[in-house]
């Protein structure tokens, strides 16, 4: 009797999580495994996908300077977006926290706004702003700040601006939730011990916000590194990143195995960078995470 009850109670959690597991398997694990297998398939420009397997695609990507440059460019872009999101997002959240509740609600909507708009509409909106005849350049020239229109559309600068706009809410939300866990008296404690507002922030508040900044940075980095629509529309042909390259391999060159290999490498690079950063920061701020 006792053992059978025990068995039921052990099996039950598995049974209950079955639908979720099935969904996970069908929608994530299976396509991932298939993509991974595909990435080892050989490809012939004339005859398409071959039934032989090897590391050819990976070697091609790793040895070719063209792909290396695309990977480095994507990493640099994601890093820049992440850093700008930290620099803008942390003060933004601090200001939000000091606001009166009514204004705070309003500004939360403003900050979360980009997430409420379809990616295509939002991106096309930005291309209207950033074009050489666009609002930004017209204003800059009208004010006499620049003589020539500066290149924002079809440039890395434009892509970083737009990605920052879209991903900033994730940083704000992450830092905000870390801030909610802070003890409000700690700031007062630091002040009473002789630390000015700036020192209090740098030495006392910032280290405690690190878990939030880290999780925000991970989300932003991962999303930026694999972003497709913004680099495609704002960056265009000139600014090739990993996501647009693998799209091209799949749908223009029809070289699916090479595209799959790029996808696998992007995933691996993302995981390595995120786990590495996580370890580093967690060790440095061990006590805050406890």
């Amino acid at each position, binding site marked *: 009797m006792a053992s059978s009850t025990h068995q039921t109670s052990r099996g039950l959690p598995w049974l209950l999580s079955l639908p979720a597991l099935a969904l996970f398997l069908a929608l994530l694990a299976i396509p991932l495994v298939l993509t991974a297998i595909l990435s080892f398939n050989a490809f012939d420009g004339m005859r398409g996908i071959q039934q032989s397997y090897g590391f050819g695609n990976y070697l091609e990507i790793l040895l070719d300077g063209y792909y290396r440059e695309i990977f480095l460019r994507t990493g640099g872009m994601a890093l820049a977006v992440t850093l700008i999101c930290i620099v803008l997002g942390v003060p933004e959240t601090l200001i939000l926290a000091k606001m009166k509740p009514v204004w705070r609600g309003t500004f939360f909507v403003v900050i979360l706004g980009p997430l409420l708009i379809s990616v295509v509409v939002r991106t096309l909106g930005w291309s209207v702003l950033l074009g050489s005849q666009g609002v930004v350049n017209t204003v800059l020239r009208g004010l006499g700040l620049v003589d020539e229109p500066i290149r924002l559309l079809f440039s890395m600068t434009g892509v970083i601006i737009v990605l920052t706009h879209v991903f900033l809410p994730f940083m704000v939300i992450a830092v905000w939730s870390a801030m909610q866990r802070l003890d409000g008296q700690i700031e007062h404690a630091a*002040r009473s011990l002789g630390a000015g507002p700036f020192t209090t922030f740098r030495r006392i508040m910032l280290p405690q916000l690190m878990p939030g900044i880290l999780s925000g940075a991970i989300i932003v980095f991962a999303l930026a590194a694999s972003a497709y629509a913004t680099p495609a529309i704002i960056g265009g042909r000139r600014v090739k990143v990993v996501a647009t390259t693998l799209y091209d391999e799949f749908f223009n060159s029809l070289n699916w195995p090479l595209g799959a290999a790029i996808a696998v490498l992007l995933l691996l690079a993302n995981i390595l960078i995120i786990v590495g950063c996580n370890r580093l920061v967690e060790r440095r701020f061990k006590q805050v995470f406890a």
Partner: protein
Amino acid sequence: MSSLSLRALSKSYGPVQAVRGVDLDVNEGEFLSLLGPSGCGKTTTLQMVAGFVPPTTGSIVVDGQDLTSIAPEKRDMGVVFQSYALFPHMNVAQNIGFGLEMRRVERGELKRRVEEALAMVRLAGLEGRYPSELSGGQRQRVAIARALAIRPRVLLLDEPMSNLDAKLRGEMHVELRSLQRRLGITAILVTHDQVEAMTMSDRIAVMTNGGIAQLGTPQEVYDRPASQFASSFLGHTNVLSGRIESRIADEATVRVGPTAFRTRVAKDQVTPDIAVFVRPERLRLGSPDQATLQGRVSTRLFLGGSWIYEIETELGMLRITQQNTGTVQAEEGETIGVSWNAEDLRVIATERSDG
């Protein structure tokens, strides 16, 4: 050692007046408690002294220096918070050393003073621990050591014991009090716990509605409460209905049940009905035939050191506390006599109209 004065200190939040015109002088080396229920303005007063909240009007003076518009980091106040507010990412030594570091104390001296502060709260050897690795009692000691390490002019304690269990709290009362005495530091304690206020303080300021209802030594405030509020907030009190029998100016003879006593009454006392107060420990139990009043024991509680009796009498329910001397004086349901001495009965001479 420093003295502190508050002059007509007020704080308004929009239409709400949290603190209204508090005047208070704290002497050098004195331990003063601000005692009152939540919302009475005691915490806001302390926050204004620490500099976290700017006063609407009034001033804060320490040793003759007006601190009202000085930033908190320049006030030299040691603050112990209710949540302890330790820095979670710093170990014990770094927490205690933070204030000294801000004062640019040289390295060797800093280490020596951190050790000294730790020894003071009997936590020597825990320098390397992090707050998450400490018990509640230890965290509180670190918070006290951190506040004392900077050798503050005034020590401010914001309900520092409310997160400790009862036994530890009792121990900390004694320990913190003797530490404060030894260092001769001026201290202000904010609390809603009347036992805490009475055991630790040289003087108690009973606060209500943003003002000080009564200021005095614990014994004065307990034995001669200036208002019904002070009387009921500090310990238990029995309220009897009395009647003024005769009166010459403010001298009156008041009758309570079968006894009468002479007392001073307020000038604005016009009706003959008057509330008379008597503390539970001033009432005596005795045999019914020799007592002032007869009653029936409705509840009896044993507290170890003492007994609490609730006695139903013609004057209403009376609470009596008796020392546990080893003999049981009355059972529940038994009829028993209650007596008192006339000098233990009090009327509140001046009930403040705004209190």
